[in-house]
């Protein structure tokens, strides 16, 4: 009989335990946290190598790498949590480059005192999101900061993917005359977070749209349409994303407000708080720009995918030395859809 005990004899108390400083010390407690929580949940052959880095097989094509830090309050919200969000967000950043996402890394900054039960929920959610997307988490890191110096959990994920030959998507490719397509409604993620944080309740709850979009993007690329720009309008919302593209490409844009879908509870919540949904974050939507002749085919390909059901052509690219993103409003007027100055803040009166 084997009488040599493992280094830690009592399992992690995932029900009542809390993160303490020893979990970040590099010692036994940290090894246990990694083994019993992270490695158990993410379980894959690369992680199982147990080294400081993951040794990955050779990949064909140009590599894409993207990284994203996630700081969310509340950590759990309608439609998701910081865990799945951190997986989806980075997969999308890789995928909008036209790449097939292959691997993720995950780095955790935990605050002393954080309940292990919550951490377990978050890690499980990450693991499930990564499995569903077919993109394993192959390496990671954990640090613990003293109480009061963090906000529960911060997660940084990095993703690697490969772009097949012949695909070149970039924010500087938009040309006057091109069509601008949007995959669905805007503002769902940001307002799900905000309404929960502010304790607002609506007859229909606002659910985050967090999702991995690489499947939709693959379908779009497979349609044979030549895409010029793809981007996911996360923080700063649709308005910020379009302004970034306009600046990169040196063009202007004209949007049509009536073509941009905003779900009713989102619109109501925005109204209540004095926010403009154009600037509210999304986590499962994308913007695509293509040549005008390709727009119908691209739209059909998007609509055929569950994450693109509500896709629409929302505007055109214009030649404009000032780089204005403009919009014809529902009322028939015109306005600039500007960069946001700082954070979008609720109205006072």
């Amino acid at each position, binding site marked *: 009989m084997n009488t040599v005990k493992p280094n830690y004899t009592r399992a992690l108390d995932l029900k009542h335990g809390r993160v303490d400083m020893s979990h970040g010390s590099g010692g036994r407690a940290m090894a246990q946290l990694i083994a019993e929580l992270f490695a158990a949940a993410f379980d894959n052959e690369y992680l199982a190598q147990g080294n400081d880095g993951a040794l990955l097989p050779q990949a064909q094509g140009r590599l894409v790498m993207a990284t994203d830090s996630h700081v969310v309050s509340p950590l759990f919200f309608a439609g998701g949590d910081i865990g799945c969000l951190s997986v989806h967000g980075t997969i999308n950043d890789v995928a909008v480059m036209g790449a097939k996402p292959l691997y993720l890394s995950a780095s955790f900054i935990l605050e002393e005192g954080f309940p292990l039960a919550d951490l377990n929920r978050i890690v499980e959610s990450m693991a499930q999101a990564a499995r569903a997307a077919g993109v394993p988490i192959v390496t990671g890191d954990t640090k613990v900061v003293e109480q009061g110096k963090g906000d529960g959990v911060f997660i940084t994920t990095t993703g690697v993917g490969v772009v097949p030959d012949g695909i070149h998507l970039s924010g500087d490719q938009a040309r006057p005359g091109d069509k601008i397509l949007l995959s669905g409604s805007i503002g769902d993620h940001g307002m799900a977070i905000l309404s929960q944080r502010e304790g607002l309740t609506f007859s229909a709850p606002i659910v985050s749209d967090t999702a991995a979009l690489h499947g939709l993007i693959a379908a779009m690329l497979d349609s044979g349409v030549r895409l010029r720009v793809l981007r996911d309008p996360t923080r700063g919302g649709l308005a910020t994303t379009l302004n970034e593209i306009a600046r990169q490409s040196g063009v202007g844009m004209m949007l049509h407000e009536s073509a941009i879908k905003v779900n009713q509870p989102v619109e109501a919540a925005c109204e209540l708080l004095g926010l403009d949904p154009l600037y509210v974050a999304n986590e499962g939507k994308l913007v695509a720009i293509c040549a005008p002749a390709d727009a119908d085919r691209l739209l059909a390909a998007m609509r055929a995918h569950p994450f693109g059901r509500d896709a629409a052509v929302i505007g055109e690219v214009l030649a404009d030395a000032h780089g*204005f993103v403009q919009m014809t*409003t*529902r*009322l028939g*007027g015109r306005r*600039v859809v*500007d960069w946001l100055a700082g954070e979008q803040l*609720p109205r*006072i*009166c």
Partner: protein
Amino acid sequence: MKYVDEFRDGDLAKNIAANIAGEAHAGRAYRLMEFCGGHTHAISRYGLADLLPPNVRMIHGPGCPVCVLPIGRIDQAIRLAREQDVILCTYADTVRVPASANLSLMRAKAGGADVRMIYSTQDALKIARDNPQREVVFLAIGFETTTPPTAVAIRQAAAEGLKNFSILCDHVLTPAAMHAILAVEGGVALDGFVGPAHVSTVIGSKPYEPFADDYHKPVVIAGFEPLDVMQAILMLVRQVNDGRAAVENEFTRAVTREGNLKAQELVAEVFELRDAFEWRGLGSVPHSALKLRPQFAAFDAEQKFKVDYVAVPDNKACECAAILRGQKRPQECKIFGTVCTPENPVGSCMVSSEGACAAHYSYGRFRETA
């Protein structure tokens, strides 16, 4: 959405626009002031200027609560936070208003001051309850709409015996500001007012009657939805054409002549008139702001911490004063869009999207490039 969609209907807007164009006499100009920042925002955000004939011009008034706060008032709050170590709570955009020495509440916060952005007075009370060892000061700003919640908070704090909570009271009054605009020497070239929406739900339409009776300026109270504003403009054009000056109410779904009497009583119980208050752009205006009544002096941060108000002149290049009085347009300010932008506001009108400069910069500046 119920109660919103019907006020944003594009076809209806075109109908009203056609009526305005048809009824406005080509030979005359209609200079209409929307007093309220909420209207300024709606006009810009929906591009309503495009729907109006060129001789119907909207002039932005002083009704943006952060625009009218003078530098000295923000300085006062910054001094409290930096020198007296209080937790300073305030609403939204107030944190970005430029103050002296290149500071704002946001910059003071970055420099270590404990400044917190809150959504309601209840948040401020909670912070005070949670931090009994710290002094919590709420920078209370805004027109008649935000005053009742402050009054509620003061009454609650008094009832709870909360010792570490006080307010820096900068609540101001709409009718007094409208008087100040109309009383300008030599008169102002204004043909009428789009009257405030939310403010009027509290004070009612009655306080505007002197503007119609004594100054002969029509007032049409309107909601914040774009169609409300369009309809109010049409009603104003009609009054001007008829040579009438009356207070009319487009916003009947929320506003009565008497207003919300309960809210008015509440405010009267907690606050009294200040003899005078300095506004950015309008200077010192008599009986235009509120202070706490003597029985609530314990909650008055100005008395508790002895932070006197020191008037500070605006930046020399800044035209906010003329803009808030309706005498100039944002693009007529020399530093508009160059030195003064929403990222680096020099004047207060560039801070909130309800401010005339920020609204024009953010939504309308394409018009100058045409």
